[in-house]
């Protein structure tokens, strides 16, 4: 039986800010972009949450809900430093760590003998040690797999600790509403509801064939999740699949401005970023356009070099799909698969020389 631990910092960016300036501790604060630049809230502290502010909300909306909200610009350099300190503490327990972001990670603690092998004690030590060294509180969940560990860490947030032992899995999962399952968003939850399925108890009653009929491949996953089964491993290293940059404009721009002035600096930033990643070989180029009605489109094409004129060509086609003022523009590359490169080609001259 595996033992997985999920650790999640409580409102991480806000916690770092409050640690470094205790006067922020009891007033509502949020980290995010300015409303006049159409910023969104990345994180906010618990006093702000009481006003209904939450992450991914537009800063303008957040200030309407909570006029006294202190809006701070993010300082990623500092967050990265704190994150590295926290990951180093995790590392003292195990090197089987899968970081999900700066403030969240899975740890595979199966077979660890310290703390008499107790997941609860390991979690308690992690929480205490993290607070001691960095001043940040974390919530921890321990369970036999990733999906349950993540739900467990959320169960007693903030500063929470929740353990789901193997013999509790069945009861725990069966009472769970389907919306809690990873991959089940509002749309899937509504579809399940229409089928008369509100919780995992009801989901378990359905034969796997019926679920596959309705949801395709995801049907099998629903079948397993509703039984508390999740075989995904803790992946210690992740392959980078793409490199991209994007920007939201203070004011919507038109296609002419995008073509003539906005794309060039983006492509330049992309080139810098590619250099920083050691100039990996490129599979496809893509552009992302978000229009003023918030519809987005992405267009990609292979066999091209990441040069401005190629991005302009892609942009022209993407623009045709919406033909509206542009709110956000992004350019990027999907990285070539190292293994695919090993396939030799006929007609060498037809491949874009880079």
């Amino acid at each position, binding site marked *: 039986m595996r033992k997985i631990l999920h650790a999640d910092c409580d409102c991480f960016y806000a916690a770092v800010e409050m640690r470094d300036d205790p006067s922020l501790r009891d007033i509502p604060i949020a980290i995010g972009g300015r409303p006049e630049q159409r910023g969104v809230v990345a994180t906010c502290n618990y006093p702000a949450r009481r006003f209904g502010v939450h992450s991914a909300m537009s800063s303008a909306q957040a200030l309407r809900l909570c006029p006294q909200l202190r809006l701070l610009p993010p300082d990623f350099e500092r967050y990265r430093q704190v994150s590295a300190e926290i990951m180093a503490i995790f590392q003292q327990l195990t090197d089987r760590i899968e970081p999900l972001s700066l403030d969240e990670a899975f740890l595979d603690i199966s077979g660890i003998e310290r703390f008499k092998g107790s997941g609860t004690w390991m979690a308690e030590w992690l929480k205490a040690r993290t607070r001691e060294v960095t001043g940040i509180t974390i919530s921890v969940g321990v369970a036999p797999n990733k999906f349950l560990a993540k739900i467990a860490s959320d169960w007693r947030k903030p500063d929470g600790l929740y353990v789901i032992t193997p013999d509790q899995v069945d009861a725990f999962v069966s009472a769970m509403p389907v919306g809690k399952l990873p991959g089940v968003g509002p749309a899937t939850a509504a579809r399940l509801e229409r089928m008369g399925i509100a919780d995992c108890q009801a989901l378990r009653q359905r034969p796997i064939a019926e679920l596959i009929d309705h949801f395709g491949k995801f049907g099998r996953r629903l079948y397993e999740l509703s039984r508390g089964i999740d075989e995904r491993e803790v992946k210690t290293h992740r392959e980078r699949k793409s490199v991209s940059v994007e920007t939201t404009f203070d004011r919507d721009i038109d296609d002419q401005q995008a073509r003539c002035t906005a794309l060039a600096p983006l492509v330049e930033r992309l080139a810098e970023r590619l250099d920083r990643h050691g100039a990996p070989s490129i599979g496809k180029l893509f552009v992302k356009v978000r229009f003023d009605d918030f519809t987005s489109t992405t267009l990609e094409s292979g066999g091209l070099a990441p040069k401005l004129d190629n991005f302009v060509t892609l942009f022209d086609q993407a623009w045709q799909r919406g033909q509206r003022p542009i709110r956000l523009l992004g350019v990027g590359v999907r990285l070539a*698969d190292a*293994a695919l490169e*090993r396939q*030799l080609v*006929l007609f060498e001259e037809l*491949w874009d020389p880079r």
Partner: protein
Amino acid sequence: MKFSISREALLRPLSLVAGVVERRQTLPVLSNVLLIAGGDGLALTGTDLEVELIGHAELDSLEAAGSTTVPARKLMDICRSLPEGAMISLALEEGRAVLRSGRSRFTLSTLPAAEFPNIEQSKHDAELTLPRGVLKRLIDATGFAMAQQDVRYYLNGMLFELVSGVVRVVATDGHRLAVSESSAGVEFDGSQKLILPRKGVLELGRLLDDSDAPITLVLGPNHLRARTGGYVFTSKLIDGKFPDYERVVPKGGDKKIIAERSELRQMLSRTAILSNEKYRGVRLYLEEGNLRVQANNPEQEEAEENVTVDYQGASLEIGFNVGYLVDVLNVIGTDRVLITLSDANSSALLEAVFEGDQETPATLGSKYVVMPMRL
């Protein structure tokens, strides 16, 4: 418009024509099928503006000639689910199409026939007739190698090369190439080259069978039209330059292997099970009289197989995408296959081995080129 027709008379032409209709359409009328009822029966047309297919069905009775368009897939699904032998009547009533059969009644939306686009008839340069079976074998022998949604758009189709009495077709996705030719029953003088887009190739293939019944191809500068068995098929052509395929057909490989085709195909398919699901690489170890094939995957699982082959010469280790080899072995029609190799970085040539009386006028000359994977 009002007519009646038997379910069976309608179903086959309707499903072929509806096959051309794309599921997702930008123009509403393109998800419809055009119906024209007249003295000589019912004409059905489906189009996606690139490929157009007109089918024909015999009517049971005609009360009023006329035309309209109705949703193709819905009409097909209704006909398909009616009982066998059902008689169907269809009438245009107040702008809607009413379909009646026994105690069933369906009212379908319509769009005016005048809104239905047809592919412009361009002038035609040449005409060519050949047996349906020959064209089918040519397409079947090479179609799998066509590219799909490649930026090199001219690879997303099949090259037809017509040179005095010979039809040659070529398909490649840049990793492997298939070329096949036939002169059997081909009536044509002159020379012509065209690229038929992938969808056109697939839809044309659906119209064909193994018979010797003739199919006439009308070649224009931008279109290919095919007439056979009551169907008129039209496809736009790809305007582009197909790469010089002759240059990549290897000449002078020194390692010639003859293997039993189905034995080799089965062992490769088995080995493929434990190859990397995405890249499907396998290693081939060639030595005198034996070919060993090995595959492994990220889970460290491993497959190894040996097969006796007719080969004398130096040993060689070479990697391939196993799917590319199996695709070829699936379409080669003979019991034995000749594989010519030279080194680990050069392409393999695969050909049929004709023995004794196997060679008939309908025989295709096919060559398959597969590039290796670096191991």
